[in-house]
């Protein structure tokens, strides 16, 4: 019966405890709706034929409803609506209050990917691993704009609001892979902001966590992320940001527009800078690369010549990634420093 | 826009008001004009209500920052402006009183006083603003006042500038409306039969006063 209704309604499979509750209410609401609409529709169609016009300028009786009828019109829908509300709100409270023993996963949405971190590691991009039959609380935030974390198979959804955490929780009932979708419009690649939840059996989960915390699977994790649906330049920028954090660029360069020891990365690409020689240059890939390799060569006026060279410290791809990253800081629609949320550092 | 409900009803032929063709009588026409004005004032109240809601929410979230930031405002200026605006509201009410008695000269006098006080209000506001600019107590990202760095302080000044700015804009509109009614009074137009324009203009002015009566404690006295 469940299976059949699920198919008729095109519902995805039920893979969480909440999904079963929601679907039960769904079936209840749909059946009452269909039956009552059928009743109203039948009555209407019957009236259309029974009381069709038989002669032009026909007169009719003056009919007004009795108080009893009007009472029925009010009380019947009110009864069903309030019943649904009671059931629905009970379930809503259920999904808004995570159980005390839930395990926490931090979820961060950013344009256009999902990042997951567990309090004691590891981190993941676009793939969330959770154990089956165990409540998982998601603490959701965003780095830039609103996103919304949606797993159809779990029937859960919660907006990711920059600068703060929202929460939801689920308890997956069977191992498998389920799709994550972003349901709050978040810009150009909104429809590409996909991810997946991998539900593992308890044994697999323990093994996975152990392996992750050793760091042995980090590479595989990266490879997985590479295969994700995320567009290539964004991926490079993402790596560039990681690398920049690792080698310490942010000790001297801010990304929020404020000058620090060095000029800010925000809006650097494409900007016209006055050098200490008095010459104006337009910042491009070549200049950024050269500044990393030979910082003293073309110094921006007003900044001390204190930057060490990164020649030999950065590989070619890493340099390119940092350049890509700085390029993403060019437009005002990249929000930096907006979020008061967690700063995710890569697991070493 | 603001004056339209007032003018639409009163087809402005001097001295003797005329009933527009679609109204049953002058009384109905005046009633319509007044009701229209009330509805318009209701929209103004709801407009400011949006700002009040924003204020209430952020004050709830940042009580200390708001309390400290409000002490950065000049209470003397604020009190003076409140008294000024209340008095101007009083003179506007008196103008209606004189209009009913067809004392057009006194109507002119009262409205000129009102407009002068409105001007005074704006001048005081200008000095307040100038001081804020000087201290960098400015909205959002422009806020750079070293004396108060609690989170929420910049939000306070954002709301301060938005609400007083919107209010000052209404003061200016009110001055224009009252100026226009004053011109009509100079032409000796008003009498017991025809004072709707005076009444509606002064109602608008009272609304400006009403909004300030709430803005003043919210911004200056918490």
């Amino acid at each position, binding site marked *: 019966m469940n299976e059949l209704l699920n198919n008729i309604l095109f519902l995805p499979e039920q893979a969480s405890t909440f999904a079963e509750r*929601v679907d039960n209410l769904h079936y209840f609401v749909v059946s009452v709706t269909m039956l009552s609409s059928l009743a109203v529709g039948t009555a209407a169609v019957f009236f259309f034929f029974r009381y069709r016009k038989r002669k032009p*300028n026909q007169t009719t009786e003056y009919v007004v409803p009795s108080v009893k009828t009007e009472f029925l019109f009010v009380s019947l829908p009110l009864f069903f609506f*309030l019943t649904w509300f009671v059931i629905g709100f009970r379930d*809503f409270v259920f999904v808004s209050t995570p159980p005390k023993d839930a395990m926490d996963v931090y979820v961060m949405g950013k344009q256009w990917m999902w990042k997951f971190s567990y309090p004691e590691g590891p981190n993941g991009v676009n793939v969330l691993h959770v154990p089956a039959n165990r409540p998982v609380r998601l603490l959701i935030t965003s780095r830039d704009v609103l996103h919304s974390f949606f797993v159809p198979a779990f029937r859960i959804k919660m907006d990711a609001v920059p600068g703060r955490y929202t929460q939801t929780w689920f308890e997956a009932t069977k191992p498998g892979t389920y799709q994550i979708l972003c349901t709050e419009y978040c810009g*150009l690649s909104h*429809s*590409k902001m996909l991810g997946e939840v991998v539900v593992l059996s308890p044994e697999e989960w323990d093994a996975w966590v152990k392996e992750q915390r050793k760091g042995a699977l980090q590479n595989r994790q990266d490879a997985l992320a590479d295969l994700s649906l995320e567009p290539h330049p964004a991926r490079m920028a993402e790596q560039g940001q990681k690398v920049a954090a690792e080698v310490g660029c942010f000790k001297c360069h801010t990304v929020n527009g404020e000058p620090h020891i060095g000029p800010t990365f925000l809006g650097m690409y494409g900007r016209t800078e006055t050098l200490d020689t008095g010459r104006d240059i337009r910042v491009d890939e070549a200049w950024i690369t050269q500044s990393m390799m030979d910082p003293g060569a073309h110094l921006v006026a007003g900044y001390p010549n204190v930057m060490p060279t990164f020649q030999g410290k950065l590989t070619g791809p890493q340099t390119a990634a940092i350049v890509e990253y700085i390029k993403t800081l060019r437009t005002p629609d990249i929000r930096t420093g907006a*979020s008061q949320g967690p700063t995710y550092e890569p697991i070493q | 826009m603001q004056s339209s409900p007032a003018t639409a*009803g009163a087809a402005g032929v001097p001295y003797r008001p005329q009933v527009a063709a679609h109204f049953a009588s002058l009384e109905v026409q005046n009633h319509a004009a007044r009701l229209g004005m009330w509805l318009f004032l209701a929209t103004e109240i709801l407009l400011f209500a949006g700002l009040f809601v924003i204020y209430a929410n952020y004050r709830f979230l940042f009580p200390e920052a708001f309390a400290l930031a409000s002490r950065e405002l000049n209470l003397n200026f604020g009190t003076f402006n409140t008294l000024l605006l209340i008095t101007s509201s009083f003179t506007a009410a008196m103008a209606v009183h004189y209009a009913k008695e067809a004392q057009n000269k006194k109507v002119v006098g009262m409205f000129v006083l009102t407009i002068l006080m409105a001007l005074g209000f704006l001048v005081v506001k200008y000095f307040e603003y100038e001081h804020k600019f000087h201290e960098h107590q400015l909205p959002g990202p422009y806020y750079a006042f070293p004396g108060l760095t609690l989170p929420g302080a910049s939000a306070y000044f954002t709301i301060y500038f938005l609400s007083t700015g919107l209010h000052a804009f209404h003061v200016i509109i009110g001055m224009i409306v009252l100026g226009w009614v004053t011109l009509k009074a100079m032409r000796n137009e008003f009498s017991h039969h025809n004072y709707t324009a005076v009444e509606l203009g002064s109602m608008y002015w009272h609304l400006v006063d009403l909004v300030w009566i709430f803005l003043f404690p919210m911004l200056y006295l918490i």
Partner: protein
Amino acid sequence: MSPSSSIAAEPGAVPAPDEHHEHHPSYLVDGTTVKSWLLTLDHKRIGVMYLIWVLLFFLIGGIYALVVRLELLTPGPTLIDAMTYNRAFTMHGVVMIFLFMIPAIPGAFGNFMLPLMLGAKDVAFPRLNLLSLYLLLTGAVIAIWGMINGGMDTGWTFYTPYSTHTTTTVAPILFGAFIIGFSSIATGLNFIVTTHTMRAPGITWWKMPLFVWAMYATACIQVLATPVLGLVLLLVVGEHIFHFGIFDPAQGGDPVLFQHLFWFYSHPAVYIMVLPAFGVMSEVVAAFSRKNIFGYRAVAFSSLGIAFVGFFAWGHHMFVSGQSTFNAGVFAVLTMLVGVFTAIKVFNWVGTVYKGAVDFKTPFAYFCGFLYFTVFGGMTGVAFATASLDVPWHDTYFVVAHFHFIMVGATIMAFMAAIHYWFPKMFGKMYHEGWGLVSAALIILGFNATFIPQFLLGNAGMPRRYYEYPERFETLNVASTAGASLLAFGFLISAIYLTYALVYGRRAASNPWRSRGYEWMTESPPPTHNFVGPQPTYSEEPHFYVEPKKAEVPDAV
């Protein structure tokens, strides 16, 4: 402001006294210069101009809709790139909501019919009325200019912080919407004052036609809600330009507060769109089943009830936005009340047919479609309000299908029914009944074919505003696009035969439906000041078919 002052001395609107007292020209031919139309103060001409403009905006919005649907034909990129797609669905929403749905029925039919139904010569403030049309057009011009010069990609909800940081042209479009808000306020204000002060003798509050009640309730919402939208739009424009940080989380702002303020307008706005539709349908069902409205007071009260409770249901748009659980409960219950009020209306409409004399003409066909869309759209709305069902459905295609059913479906049905029902009243011509029924059937079928797959897509979990989608959603999307083309075809047919009827249609009788609505108590099309000779007396309630009084209903058939 300028049109209102410049027309102060314009005599064209008030016709010179006519020699032939018995032969007053209809409003359509009383003054044929362009100026006599553009600067008219006649509510009927303003209504007709509104009709022309909203139809144009409907066409623009419809083209955007077709572009969106075509793009979604295949899972990957089909026709346009992602940016264009994002702009297209935003523009579809903005144009359809602010330029079509909100002004359509109040602007066109409210303006035309309200004074006629009240036995008045005009609305209370004719100049304000004209001003509201030109404010609408000013706002439209600014917004459309913005659309051409870049467009906006935020979705019509303008959620911060995306809307304050996107590089697309947010400012002119929001500013355009802000001006359109003034137009909406002006219309609403005018209607409230007209209803209060202009009722002819005999038309007491409980004898007003239900269309007037619906317009009155709508006008209350317009007056009370629109200023808040105006403020919010200004704040977003300000944020976008100056980055005040009022809704910016980086500066302690709260994006959820933006949603509260936005929906404080935009949820009641749904009733601005649908209440006039309820009003039109109350008239149509009474006229074509030749019966008094069953439970007149219940229907009138429920309009006011929807207007009031509808204001305090806005939080059901925010169940998964981070709003508190407590608030979700409060808003869920209040939303249920809206459902109850709507149910009262539905039952009473069906009850009206009971013991009636149904004349199955085109408007009545649209009434059937309307009933269907209202029941299913309303019931899915109630399902949303259970809070827990909203969690999986929120921002999926289920929402899209739901509001297209209740808000668009019901309103379009009413709009089409109103055009057909009042076509002879407004233009004195008759359209082809057969084609009318064919296109009604096509439109209703097309609507279902478009949006029933979208309900299922939503159940399956396809989020809205997706440029590309997983392949498992393809079949249903193709079905939906096919339905959309059927829908477009249906509208095309109506456009053709209605235009034909306008030019070559046979002259309609003064009251071809033999309707006993108040608006039919004058000639069709009405003379400039609505009545010639003595004012009609309104001794009976509208749609009183108990005993025909031929003397009062001029009927030339």
